[in-house]
């Protein structure tokens, strides 16, 4: 198992699909699919990854697909296999040749935090599939 056991991270493996609200204090790696909301400090969507819903993060590295809303308070990198549709908020942006964006782009000049979030209270609904071992148990 290569699942990183550091606290605050989540890895959603290939073929794993998830519905719900995820709040990830550190890094979220999405190779499966998420339907819902994800808030993470750092969001990596792998080539097979797919998010439908709202994604909010400081730094995003997108190889897969993000639909609906992507709010990145710092840097957003869209790789050549990446595809983003919907509304995109970013501070700094880079798109590799082949990356696709369809929708509205808005830029925040400084890496300030994006306000429009659901309540910041931890309303974490534990998703049915839980591929992350909680590090606190150890």
């Amino acid at each position, binding site marked *: 198992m290569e699942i990183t056991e550091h606290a605050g991270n989540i890895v959603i493996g290939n073929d794993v699909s998830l519905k719900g609200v995820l709040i990830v204090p550190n890094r979220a790696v999405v190779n499966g699919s998420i339907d819902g909301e994800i808030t993470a400090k750092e969001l990596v969507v792998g080539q097979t990854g797919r998010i439908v819903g709202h994604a909010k993060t400081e730094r995003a590295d997108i190889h897969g697909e993000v639909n609906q809303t992507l709010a990145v308070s710092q840097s957003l*990198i869209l790789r050549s296999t990446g595809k983003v549709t919907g509304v995109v908020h970013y501070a*700094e*942006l880079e*798109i590799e*040749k082949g*990356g696709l*964006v369809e929708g*509205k*782009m808005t830029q925040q000049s400084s890496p300030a935090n994006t306000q429009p979030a659901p309540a910041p209270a931890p309303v974490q609904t534990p998703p049915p599939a839980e591929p992350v071992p909680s590090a606190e148990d150890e």
Partner: protein
Amino acid sequence: MFNKSTNTQDNPKGNVQPSYTPSEGSDYNQPSRSASEPTGSYRSSMEVTSGSGKPSIISEDVVLTGNIKTPGALHIEGTVKGDLEVSSLTIGPTGLFEGNVNCKILNIRGKFSGTSVCRELMVASSAQIDAKITYQDLTLQRGAGLRGELHVANFAE
């Protein structure tokens, strides 16, 4: 698509978006952004040349309002407002273009606002864009400012 009909005849003076007030001399004409900036590595994979093989150049101090149609390439280092129908448009680091452009290759290093339909869109880090762009292929260098709407199209050919 949008704006394909709102071109030359309907808009002979090219007076698009009169809300814009150019802050000439202070804004687009920054001496720090010289045309000799190293941009050689940022080239299109499909170069377009006009019949004579040379691009038409609107140089730095030129302010042009009107519409341009050319089967070749156009390079803007000055200020242009209007509608363009060209095969390849480059907005240089000191260039400012406001209006609608229909082209194969759109290479932006300066400022652009308006709408565009293009096949290949290339945005350098010095670019500031506020536009509605339909494209097929996109590259954007880190640091560029892009606001507006993007649409993906699949142009045959």
